[in-house]
């Protein structure tokens, strides 16, 4: 009985191992780009400051704005965005994978006894995690030491802080799930520069990267709530500031899980369909 159990356990680890290795290799590889990370930190900090000044100017005007979160909430939102941008942006892509598809090298990966979807998803997740790991701490520290109106404040309680971390990780999974469709698209069209720009523009807006979603008109917020977009970055950032808390936060995280699973299954099926149609020319 117990022997059977151990064998089952070891098969599970065997199944997971190649994807975990891919994650580790890619994560360590990405950690090497430190100079790029420093430049990124400076840029993120600069842009963060520009937007914080802009929002302060808007809020400093007449008190006519109703139904918007407090300035402090928006400022924390903005700094979180700058710190975790690499974790949640949709336009980040892996040029290597795109070249594999266009150049035909994907044929080698297909010969291996691994699931291509899972392998690439692990790799994309590692990219996000590593780039973010190199950048988030300095930006957050700077954001916390900034003087009162422009700086960031801690979450209202420990619960919000913990839920934020859970929700941010799930958000990264939603982002990976969505960006996998870019590779599906590349399998179909082979050239992906044009569509990528187009999709990137919409995604940037819809994830709240241009202006925070709470500042958008109500009808648009309601429409976006039905898509996965706000469940990438907007939700974790609002959980952080306590804007969404308690049972509402739990329910929202449940919706995130729903999107992770839905996107994962549909993406995996889409990969199967396009891979069956893929023709590798010559070699």
């Amino acid at each position, binding site marked *: 009985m117990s022997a059977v159990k151990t064998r089952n356990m070891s098969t599970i680890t065997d199944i997971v191992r190649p994807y975990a290795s891919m994650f580790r290799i890619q994560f360590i590889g990405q950690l090497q780009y430190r100079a790029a990370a420093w*430049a990124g930190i400076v840029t993120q900090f600069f842009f963060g400051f*520009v937007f914080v000044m802009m929002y302060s100017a808007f809020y400093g005007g007449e008190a006519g704005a109703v139904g918007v979160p407090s300035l402090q909430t928006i400022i924390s939102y903005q700094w979180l965005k700058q710190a975790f941008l690499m974790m949640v942006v949709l336009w980040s892509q892996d040029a290597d994978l795109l070249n594999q598809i266009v150049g035909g090298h994907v044929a080698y990966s297909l010969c291996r006894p691994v699931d291509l979807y899972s392998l690439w998803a692990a790799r994309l997740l590692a990219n996000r995690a590593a780039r973010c790991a190199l950048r988030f701490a300095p930006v957050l520290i700077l954001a916390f030491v900034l003087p009162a109106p422009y700086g960031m404040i801690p979450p209202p309680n420990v619960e919000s802080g913990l839920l934020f971390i859970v929700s941010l990780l799930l958000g990264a999974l939603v982002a990976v799930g969505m960006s996998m469709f870019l590779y599906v698209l590349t399998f179909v069209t082979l050239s992906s520069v044009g569509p990528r720009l187009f999709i990137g523009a919409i995604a940037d807006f819809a994830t709240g990267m241009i202006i925070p979603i709470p*500042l958008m008109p109500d009808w648009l917020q309601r429409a976006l709530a039905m898509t996965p977009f706000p469940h990438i970055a907007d939700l974790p950032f609002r959980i952080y500031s306590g804007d969404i808390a308690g049972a509402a936060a739990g329910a929202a995280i449940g919706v995130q899980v729903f999107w992770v699973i839905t996107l994962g299954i549909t993406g995996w099926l889409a990969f199967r369909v396009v891979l069956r149609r893929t023709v590798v020319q010559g070699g």
Partner: protein
Amino acid sequence: MIYFKYIRMQLRSLAQYRSTFWFMIMGQSLTCALGFASMTMMFDRFHTVAGWTYAEAALCYAAVFMAFSIAECVARGFDSFSRLIVSGDFDRLLLRPRALTLQVLGSSFELTRLGRLIVGGTILQFAARNLGVAWTADKVVVLIMMILSGVVIFFGVFMLGAAMCFVTVEGLEIVNVFTDGGREIASYPLPIYGKTALRFFTFIIPYGCFNYLPLLYLVGRADGHAALYALSPLIGMLFVIPCAFVWKAGVRRYLSTGN
């Protein structure tokens, strides 16, 4: 002229990838339009920003996007200069008996940026109509000068960024702070970012010269030296002169990366 031959060459190669071209144009237009939609949403919630109206901000946005897209279209060779250095192709340019700047400019011509220009132009029209300004001839001239001045200033910043590549080889993301960041900043009237930013972007990198200084003149808020505000776009253009010197100095000190 050889520059036009370069451009014809670039356009021909572009014509080979037509669907990509149209997707790029659409993507660029969409970025610009969504940026403006975001600005509209902000004003929808807050009505004014630090005493500036929606139409005034829209004019800034339109002017900076038009200027930036023209500058990027023409001077993309400078904007993506690190490519020439890293690949060693810059050495080839140096060997040719033609003007170097011309060759760098000719190395890339981004017609797709015109998507932004079209959207920017539409926004400009909208802003000009809603600004409540009587468009006399002098004001129209100032408006045109704003855009031209913006093109020249962005051109200068691209040159500075390219000159830095002589030292660093790799393109620096920091330069984006002044190009994309400058565009972002100048799409609102500069004073909303506070005094320090205002001074820096007026006297060091003169984005203010095509942004809020002439805007003050247009809306009749220029107190005192109205002529000075009207002429500020011209003064701003002088910025390109030191940039050209830095570029020249960089070229003189250039050592190839090898090939």
